[in-house]
């Protein structure tokens, strides 16, 4: 029970919806962790958690909870 899972307690997982897809993430996963696991550069995305935009400065401290809905839009600048 106390085993460490990527540095976190393996005390369970949270079920979240990311871009419309159901996903399981380890307890304690933050928005920054999620972006990194999706190989997204946090500098050019917008993240919405339960319909509210998450400020970039808060990606690392915003922890996902069971039932959360996350939408990530990658911002591309070409024309």
């Amino acid at each position, binding site marked *: 029970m106390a085993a460490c899972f990527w540095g976190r307690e393996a005390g369970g997982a949270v079920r979240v919806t990311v*871009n*419309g897809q159901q996903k399981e993430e380890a307890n304690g996963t933050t928005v920054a962790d999620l972006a990194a696991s999706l190989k997204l*550069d946090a*500098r*050019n995305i*917008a993240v*919405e958690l339960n*319909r509210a*935009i998450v*400020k*970039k400065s808060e990606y690392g401290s915003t922890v996902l909870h069971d039932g959360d809905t996350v*939408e990530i*839009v*990658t*911002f*591309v*600048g*070409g*024309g």
Partner: protein
Amino acid sequence: MAAFDPKEFAVPRERARVLVAGAGGLGSPALAALASSGVGVIGVADSDVVDLSNLHRQVIHVTAGVGLPKTASAEEFLKRSGFGGAVLTFQTRLDTGNIMEVVSEFDVVVDACDTFRSKFMLNDACVLAGRPFVHAGVLQFEGQIMTIYPERTACLRCLFESPPPPGSVPTCQEAGVLGAAAGVLGAIQAAEALKVLDGKKTTLSDRVVAFDARHMSFRTVPVSRDPGCPVCGTKPRIDSMEDANYPPEACD
């Protein structure tokens, strides 16, 4: 946020003035769709010349036009396609010194430019000038699009705060653009501009569409204004066009 009536921004089609900022990958399909839409005036702003490497996605330009200013080539296209209105060309890079004057001449602005810097500059100028604005960006197989009613619906800075730092994002030149992906997004931009002019309630305002041609998916994400937005929030930090707000891009 109180509801607003998009009819406030409606303009009769034959008198309508549309600015397409950028006559490249997004601007070409947008101009092609606008050419036969019956608008009164089409403005085209671009400082670039037509290059052979542009032609796969910048479909209004032709091989014989390589080396011509894109504005002149776009004007030729509009005349060729029977556009009966007036064409205004701005063969210049839009910058903090001229952008307010240019966007103020138009009823709706299509963001078809190709740098984050220009996109944020256009966003801010349109918010400050009170002009509706149809944003899009494209790279490789994907892109995003959103329609903005100044101080009524979410703007680019409500979502993205500021341009990504130089070097964090590949450019069109480095990464390439699927011509057809730009075609899809540019055509949607034209449709959005016409819906703004018609006062339709169903524009992509307070909604971002994330398009991915790999999966052919259109994901619509509802968004809302940020009261802390630096340009359209309750205490805006940006109230005029200043160079300091638009750091130059590495490949500008």
